[in-house]
């Protein structure tokens, strides 16, 4: 019986992170249930990127921005952007 087509979340890094850790790659597909696991998976693939993501980055999951992400759920077809944390005046 044909299985469910494998869909993985689309992950988008900033160009700065891509250049520094991922050989210029900024878009990739990774399967991870939540942000914590996604960061761990990214760190495994691109050593050193994990601490930077935890320290400085917010994420937007399907358009919803999370400034201090950790346990937020990622669906198999989610679009996840890492972007700098925003504060304000």
């Amino acid at each position, binding site marked *: 019986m044909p299985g469910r087509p494998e869909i993985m979340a689309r992950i*988008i890094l*900033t*160009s*700065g992170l891509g*250049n*520094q850790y991922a050989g210029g790659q900024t878009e990739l597909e990774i399967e991870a249930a939540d942000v914590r696991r996604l960061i761990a998976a990214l760190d495994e693939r691109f050593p050193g990127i994990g601490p930077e993501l935890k*320290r*400085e980055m917010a994420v*937007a999951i*399907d*358009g*919803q*921005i*999370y*400034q*201090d992400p950790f346990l*937020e759920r990622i669906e198999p077809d989610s*679009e996840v*952007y890492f*972007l*700098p*944390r*925003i*504060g*304000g*005046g």
Partner: protein
Amino acid sequence: MASENQELKWIGTSPVRPDGTDKVTGRAKFGADLMLPGMLTGKILRSPHAHAKIKSIDTSKAEALPGVKAVVSAADIAEMPSEWVPAGELQLNYRDLASNIMARGKALYDGHAVAAVAATSAAIADAALDLIAVDYEVLPHVIDVEEAMAPDAPVLHEDMFTEGVTPTPDKPSNIFKEIDIGIGDVETGFAAADLIVERSFKTAPVHQGYIEPHAAVASFAEDGQAELWCSTQGHFTARAYCAKLLGMDVSDLRVTASEIGGGFGGKTTVYVEPVALLLSRKAGRPVRVVMTRDEVFRASGPTSGAANWVKIGVTNDGKIVAGEAVLKYQAGAFPGSPVQPGCMCAFAPYDIENVKVKGYDVVTNRPKVAAYRAPGAPIAEHAVESVLDEVAKKLGMDPIELRQKNAAREGTNAAYGPKFGPIGYAETLAAAKAHPHYSAPLGPNQGRGVASGFWFNVGGDSCATMNVSEDGTLVLATGSPDIGGSRASMAIMAAETLGIDVADVRPIVADTASLGYTFLTGGSRVTFATGMAVIEASKQIAEELRQRAAKIWDISVDAVVWEDGYAKPAGANAGDFEPLSIGDIAAQAGKTGGPISANAALNAQGAGPGFGTHICDVEVDPETGRVTVLRYTAIQDCGKAIHKAYVEGQIQGGAAQGIGWALNEEYIYDEKGRLDNPGFLDYRIPVASDLPMIEAVIVEVANPTHPYGVRGVGEVPIIPPMATVANAIEGAIGVRMTELPMSPPKVLAALDNGR
């Protein structure tokens, strides 16, 4: 309980402000108002040089002066490792913060603190400052951002090697960081364009212009615990910074936020607070430090000045096919300008497939920049909105129609990446186009401009505690210093949720020992995030009141509803009971389980982005170059206005500050890098007589993640004014102004060149 789907009783009204009476009678206690027994006066010695090596500091004569109780310098602050933490819109580095509080090794700007004294009187403190001998070796300095980027510029930090470039340079530079963001391929986009417009712009650093100077009173006890009262936008963050700088346990420092006479972002960091604490610890007595206006200008953070370049390509029907920008922001003496959000905001209002933005964070011999409403966004969007105006004119298209054709909508991928949820930009454009202002006739030498602005809005950590008093009134405590009407808004949301009279809720700002951590007031986050905590606490109170009513009536709690401020039987089967008010239930609280109290603590996510569109009419005097603002309309999507008059006030205030940024405000340095205009007489902010009534138009496209639809207000209204005014001036004189401020000499020169 009320919800966004029900008819609202209090939300959207403008009840009397809970802090109003104290403020108009002079009773409100601002930062400098606190007096403690035995309190000393603290004063700060500041560098007269823009850039100088500090060879030595001799404080012996000052220490020997009768009445002097303590003298401190950088030697009294432990050296900090480089460690970045979030602080407002900026990442704050403790090593830099420590060196900004007290210069270490080098003075990096005119006004940089080098030592401080605490004495029994202000006169003795002043005399002591005169007795401190600082041996400076004056170094070459650099004020302008592009001059600071030049390869032969004087270097401020020998250990600064530009981040964000590969490989990391081996030569130090004033460029701390390069930032690149983008989507699509701008070369392809520009190749498809029928019209390309590009221009360079310069904006001046401007101060937040709060009326109340920085002020702090510190009192150290013998056991190492301390109290601090200060004028701050974030007493929890001030506690964290000060505890770190002084090597204290965070819980040993109790910080109370005074009433605040304006902040606008400038009070999201610390200046005098750790100095007052250092002096108090050394003297063993309370110490008060209050900046003069001169010190505020010379030593507290303005926002960045910048040199920007923007290029936009469109097709003949007005579709933007590519946008590119280079943004060079001054950070002041230490890294950390708001160029990152500037890069992200520049093209955010528009649906563009191809965007490329490069940003530079550049140190100069000026005070370290601090946050200022929508940090970074006004500077970048001024350039983009000015070029768009030029594009519209060249296409012969109405400037609002051009924006409508390209406006970001729900589902649009923002130029900084993710998709927008529900947003109200198109609604602000439609409201602007339909507004009578937009079609009113203009006279000779008059012009009309429009421009728009975007800001993310943010959430974050907030707490709220609600205590029901014995008579049924409530005290509502939050940890958000009230700089824009948040106490009124919190009381309204609590009253609406509980169905009670707003006058029965007494909102206060609690100190750091009385409430859980609450992030600072900034980023248009408080009504959204702290509001969510208040609503959550109110729901807990309503639930507890149901339970108490059930006990009083001796029925199941499921048979009790909370409705319009009363506990009522859920239906005929629940029994025949007279409804119970909060007062009725509170009077029997002791018999039903004790005091009624609730606490909510959360990290609010899901802030809704904000957009605004402004319209401005100006008249330009062709003889003097003076620009008079004749009419101004500011339209903004706030999601939901909680306290309507305060929301209008926020919009009006932001527009007024933006008009000052556009027309008058600038720092003037002499050839030695010393600030020539550190006072409101020479640093010209608009006063009431300079401006017409600013009409605020509130658009409400609900943010679905907030129970009442709140987005936030305070940031967006300062973004559009600079381009709005510039576009209006262009309409009046036919010349594009590219440098802020557009002061009379510059307008006159433009007129002369354009004639």
